[in-house]
């Protein structure tokens, strides 16, 4: 056919009753096919670079021995999917424990973090005695970091080494999330708060009954930022924890996959599937929670970051 892509598209549109692409602004000229194909290549390439590793990992974890041996270790699509790798991993305790530890840290950490951040953000968002100095104290943390070694000594001093609290407490306040939340609180119209105060509400009641219901979106965003931070942390576990039963998922992932440590002792099963599928199974287990939760959250993240970036 001698028609260009543009002509074919215009014909299709015309058959629907339109003579132009309604999404394109009037002043914009339609792009040449060359330009469009370059754009398409870039977008396609990026998409592939993200989807391919994830697909690879999931497929290898589901592939059976024969295909793995034949392919030399990596498959893009399992011809006879099997859950053997997952069965082996879950046959021993260590993965359940790691998942439990990570879940505990994330849940408790996020609740504590939200508590501290909301109270601090609200208290510094109104003209309050000591409000200004406290605000400066918080903003100063953006400038300077205490350093790895003093933090380690502090955690040791508090007796938290080798406990799960060393993975929770240091992460319960992040100045960036504080700023996002405070911006939001400052934009709540004072009329609402004045009205509540005229009705006799105390500060705590105002926070609970007026401010929080209005802030559900921001709280969701900030909570998710914190939750992702807690779930993904691995170095603090490496630094503070020696007890193997307290290892979070990320540390397990590092030990067995990135470092390629032997799983034989931990799993202790006579016949195991090939190590690649076991490793990939661990990767998938670490990946799954984020993948599952992600679609519901990504629109919240988008809004939250823009609020923080522009208002902050």
């Amino acid at each position, binding site marked *: 056919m001698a028609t260009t892509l543009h002509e074919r598209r215009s014909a299709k549109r015309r058959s629907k009753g339109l003579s132009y*692409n309604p*999404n*394109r*602004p009037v*002043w*914009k000229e339609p*792009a040449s096919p060359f330009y469009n194909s370059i*754009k398409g290549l870039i977008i396609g390439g*990026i*998409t592939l670079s*993200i*989807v391919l*590793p*994830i697909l690879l*990992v999931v497929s290898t974890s589901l592939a059976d021995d024969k295909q793995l041996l034949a392919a*030399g*270790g*990596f498959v893009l699509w399992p011809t006879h999917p099997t859950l053997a790798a997952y069965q082996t991993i879950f046959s021993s305790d260590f993965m359940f424990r790691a998942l439990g530890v990570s879940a505990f840290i994330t849940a408790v950490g996020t609740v504590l973090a939200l508590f*501290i951040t909301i109270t*601090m953000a*609200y*208290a510094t968002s109104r*003209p*309050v*005695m*000591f409000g200004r100095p406290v*605000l*400066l*104290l918080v903003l100063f*943390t953006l*400038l*300077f*970091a*205490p*350093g790895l*070694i*003093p933090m380690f*000594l*502090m955690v040791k001093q508090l007796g938290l080494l080798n406990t799960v609290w060393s993975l929770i*407490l*240091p992460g319960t*306040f992040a100045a960036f999330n504080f*700023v996002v939340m*405070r911006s939001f609180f*400052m934009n709540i119209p004072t009329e609402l708060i*004045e009205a509540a*105060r005229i009705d006799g509400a105390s*500060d*705590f009641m105002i*926070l609970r009954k007026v401010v929080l219901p209005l802030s559900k979106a921001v709280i969701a965003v900030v909570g998710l930022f914190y939750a992702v931070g807690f779930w*993904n942390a691995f170095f603090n576990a490496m630094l503070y924890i020696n007890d193997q039963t307290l290892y979070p998922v*990320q540390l397990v992932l590092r030990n067995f996959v*990135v*470092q390629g440590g032997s799983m034989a002792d931990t799993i202790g099963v006579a016949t195991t599937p090939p190590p690649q599928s076991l490793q990939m199974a661990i*990767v998938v287990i*670490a990946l799954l929670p984020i993948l599952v939760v992600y*679609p519901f959250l*990504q629109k919240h*993240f988008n809004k939250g970051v823009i609020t923080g*970036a522009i208002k902050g």
Partner: protein
Amino acid sequence: MSQIQQESAREQAVADDRPSEARVTKGLRRAKPAGKVLSHDGLPVRKISWKTRLRRDRQMLLMMIPGVLFLALFFYIPILGNVIAFQDYQPFLGITGSDWVGLQNFVDLYFNPDFWVALRNTIVLALWQLLLFFPVPLGLALIVDSLISTKIRRWFQSLVYLPHFLSWVLVIALFQQVLGGAGLVNNTLRDMGMGTIPFMTNPDTFPLLATIQLVWKDAGWAMIIFLASLAAIDGSLYEAAAADGAGRWRRMWHITLPGLRSIIVLLLILRIGDILSVGFEQFLLQHDAVGPGAAEVLDTFTYFAGVVGGGWSMGAAAGLAKGVVGALLIFAANKVAHRMGEPGIFQKKVG
């Protein structure tokens, strides 16, 4: 961020929603002399004693306690703990029992070749990141913004934010599966009879690899800020330019890029101010694979020399040096931003 500016503007211009400040409106009374608190319409306001204010604000003050306690425990006291950088700290002697050695640790640091390797790597990696990682989100934003179909735009954006939420452990693991010695690419090369390429274990190409990893992980996320700025550019400017005959590229040069100038300058300056923080977990994870010659940065040096090696004071000295220089750089970068007429992170307090 203009917290401080907003704060002072608020206190002077916005009606206080706390009712204990009653308005005194005796008709013939003149405005009180400067120094007294005035409400926004210029009428005098009764000044309150600090005791009353304390009583009035007691619940808010209670609210601030958990946060302040946290900051004290996990930020300010550890900062004081940096004093061990000036001591010969022995764990069983504690801070009070260890000898004071003044600047000796810093001198030792100066003569420690590993420190210079770490510093060199930090700067090299920072420069690579600046050259490669900084423009990519900008280019991505321009491409995404020029996509006409909103459906594709939304799908692509969702996809490209995803790697940001993966941990570095996952990211390195994924890279290993594709580029590692036993990974997909090398397996395919081996099957085709060609030799393998040591993508992830070659110390000479490590800065490129590290930057590619960073781009893969965070470029989509960094794109958001640029997309928001692009959306803020007035659409009628484009229309007028097109009416005057400006083509696609001229419009970009004369409207889009100048519109992004503020945010580009701000981010660039902040990035330079932050130059010593190139990352930590990413390099710790690959430390064994490429060796410390390529993967050691200031933060990993602090970890290995200090925690693992037991040289607490030297590690603290390195961390302190990095922290102080980093703070100075951020401050200087902020000043430069002010000089260029852009708002920085910390603004001077107004009035």
